[in-house]
C-alpha cells in the first residue's frame, strides 16, 4: 500500500496490472487446490469427530471415540509396519539409486538421455500390471524359485510372495525412478572440480565421497527420499497384491474402513494420523535444507 501512495498514476496502473496478471495466472492452481485439497481435507477432519452412520456416511453427533480406538495395539502394529516398510524402501532406493544416478550423470550427454529414458520407460506400463508381474516372479512356482531350484541352491521353494519382503521389493521397484530423477538432477549440476580439490588435499576415494560428494548432493537425496517415502507410507495397492492379508499397511486400513467396514469417521481418523506421520519428515527435511543454505 505504501507504494501506491507515493508513486505516480502511471506506476499505479502498472502495479495494478501486475497484480491482476499474478492473480489471473495463479487462479487455476488456487482453485484446484481449494476445491480438491483444502475442502476435502476439512471434510475428513470434521468427519473424524462424528458418529458413524449405519450404512456408511456419518451422524452429526460429536464424539472422540474414534480417536480413542487408536490405542489398540493392532493399529500400532500396522502404523509401525508402514513406517518401517516406507523407511526401508526409501533407504533401499537411495542405496540402489545413488550409484545409478551418479553413473548416468557422468556419461556423455547423448548416453545420459538414453539411460534416463530407460529409467522412465516402466512408467509407460500400467502400475497394476507391473505389480502383478511380481507375483509371477515371486510365487512358489515362479521365476526365482524355479531358477534357484534348477541351480540346486535351494531344495524347497521359498515363501517369497505375501511377505513383507515381497511388499518391499514391490515398493522399491515402483518408487525407484522417483529417487533417481532428483538425484540425477543434483549430481548432474555437481561441480567435479570439488572432487579434484579433495583428492589434491589428500582425500582418498572413500573420504572424498563422505566428506565432499555426499554433503554436496544432500538436496537431491532429501528430495528423492521425500518423493519415495511419502507415497510409500500411504501405499495400499502393492501390499494388497504382494502382501496378502498378512502385510497390511496404513493405506489398506483406510481403504478397509471406508469400503468394507463402512466406518467413515474411523477411516478419517486413520487418514489424519497418516498425514501427521508424513508431515514430520517433510518438516525435518525442510529444516535441513535451510541449514545448508546459510
Amino acid at each position, binding site marked *: 500500500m505504501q507504494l501506491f501512495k507515493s508513486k505516480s498514476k502511471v506506476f499505479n496502473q502498472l502495479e495494478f496490472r501486475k497484480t491482476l496478471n499474478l492473480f489471473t495466472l495463479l487462479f487455476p492452481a488456487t482453485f484446484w487446490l481449494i476445491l480438491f485439497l483444502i475442502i476435502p481435507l476439512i471434510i475428513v477432519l470434521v468427519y473424524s469427530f462424528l458418529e458413524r452412520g449405519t450404512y456408511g456416511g456419518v451422524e452429526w453427533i460429536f464424539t472422540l471415540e474414534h480417536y480413542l480406538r487408536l490405542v489398540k495395539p493392532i493399529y500400532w502394529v500396522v502404523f509401525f509396519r508402514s513406517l518401517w516398510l516406507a523407511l526401508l524402501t526409501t533407504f533401499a532406493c537411495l542405496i540402489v539409486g545413488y550409484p545409478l544416478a551418479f553413473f548416468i550423470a557422468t556419461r556423455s550427454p547423448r548416453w545420459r538421455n538414453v539411460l534416463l529414458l530407460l529409467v522412465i520407460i516402466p512408467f509407460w506400463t500400467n502400475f497394476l500390471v507391473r505389480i502383478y508381474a511380481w507375483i509371477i516372479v515371486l510365487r512358489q512356482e515362479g521365476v526365482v524359485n524355479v531358477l534357484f531350484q534348477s541351480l540346486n541352491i535351494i531344495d524347497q521353494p521359498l515363501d517369497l510372495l505375501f511377505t513383507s519382503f515381497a511388499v518391499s521389493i514391490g515398493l522399491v521397484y515402483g518408487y525407484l525412478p522417483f529417487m533417481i530423477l532428483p538425484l540425477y538432477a543434483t549430481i548432474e549440476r555437481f*561441480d567435479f572440480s570439488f572432487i579434484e580439490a579433495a*583428492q*589434491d*588435499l589428500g*582425500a582418498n576415494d572413500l573420504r572424498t565421497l563422505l566428506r565432499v560428494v555426499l554433503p554436496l548432493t544432500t538436496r537431491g537425496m532429501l528430495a528423492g527420499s521425500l518423493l519415495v517415502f511419502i507415497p510409500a507410507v500411504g501405499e495400499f495397492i502393492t501390499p494388497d497384491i504382494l502382501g496378502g492379508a498378512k502385510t497390511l499397511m496404513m493405506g489398506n486400513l483406510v481403504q478397509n474402513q471406508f469400503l468394507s467396514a463402512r466406518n467413515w469417521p474411523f477411516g478419517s481418523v486413520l487418514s489424519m494420523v497418516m498425514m501427521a506421520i508424513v508431515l514430520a519428515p517433510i518438516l525435518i527435511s525442510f529444516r535441513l535444507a535451510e541449514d545448508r543454505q546459510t
Partner: protein
Amino acid sequence: MYAVELTNVSKAFLGQNQREFLAVNQVDLAVAEGEFFSLLGPSGCGKTTILRMIAGFELPTSGEVLIQGEAMRDRPPFHRPVNTVFQNYALFPHLTVAENVAFGLEMDNLPRPEIEQRVKDAIAQVKLTGLETRRPRKLSGGQQQRVALARALVKQPQVLLFDEPLGALDLKLRKAMQLELKHMQQQVGITFIYVTHDQEEALTMSDRIAVLEDGQVLQVGTPAEIYENPNCRFVADFIGESNFLVGRVIEQHPGGVVVLVDEELPISIPSELDLPVGKVVTLVIRPEKATLHPHQYVDEPSLGGTVSEVVYLGTDTRFVIRLTPKSSIIVRRQNLYRSNLDSFSVGERVQIRIAPDSIRILEEGELSTNQPFAKPELGKRQ
C-alpha cells in the same frame, strides 16, 4: 635433484570425431627446488594439461613425471607431495573458511591441536583472520582466492601448483596479488609452478618461464632471457611487442652481416652466427629499443623512414614508421618531458637509431611475410 622433472612427456586426448590430438608433445622440463616457474602460453597450448599431470589428475600417454626424483606414474593425486590452487578455487561450499583450510590436514590425520594451530597460522598468513567462520560464497573473489591459497599452503607441500589463479580478479587486485604471491614464495621457499596466459604476470613473478605453443616447449629461460633473446618468432611476438623485418643476407664479414630488407633497405648487424649470403632471416626489434631523431641527424648508422602514425598513450608515445613501401616498424618513446608531446608528426622524415646488438636475428622467415602495419594492434597489452 629437481623439484619436478618431466622427461619426454606426451599426452594424447581423444578429440571430436574420435581423432587423437596431442595436447602435450614430448615435453622436457626441469624445475629446481625453490624456484618460481611459470608455464606461459595461449589457451590450448597444453600448459594446464602439464600442470594436471604433475598434480596427478591426468596420466601422461608417454614419458615420466618425477617429483623430488621419484616417478609418479603409480601415485594417485592424494599421494603426491603437491597441492593445487585451482582456477575457479574449488572451495567447498558446505564448509567454512577454517574448515576448508583444515580439510587437507584432517586427511593427513594430524592431531586436532596441531591442525587448529596450523589453520590459524595459514589464515593469518593470507590475512583473512576474522573470517574463519564464513562460508566461501559470502567472500569476495580476492578473499576466495586467499582461502584457496591458504588451503594449499597449510599442507606445506614440496611443490605448489597454480592454475591461472588470478584470472578472475580485476587488474588492480591482480597486480597486488602478483607481488604478494612472489613475496610469499620467497618467504616459504616452496617451489611454485604457475600456469598463466598473461605474459606480464609471468615476467613479474617468475624466476624462469617456459613458453609453450601447441603442446611444445618453445623456450625456457629467465624473464630477461626470454624477453631479450627470444629464440623464435612466436616467443618474440607473445612476450611483449616486437617488430619483425624479414630480409636476405647480402654480405657476411667476421663478426657481422648485412641484411637487405625488401630488396632496398640494408641493415648492418653484429652476429656470431654463421649466416651465408642469400639466407633469409627475421630481424626482431623491440619498439622501446629504437629511438627517433630528426632527419638531419646522420652522424651514426641509422635507418630513414616516414612517420605514418602517432599514438599518444600517456606514459609513452607510439610511432609507426614506414621504412619501405612494404615494411613499417613501431617505435615507442617514453614521454620524459611534457614538451616532447608533438615533436614528430605524421608525414615527417625521421632517422631511427637502434643499437646494433639490440637487433635479434632469427634464422627463419619467408620473404613474402613482410607487410606494412596498416593498423597496429593498439589493444594488445604491453
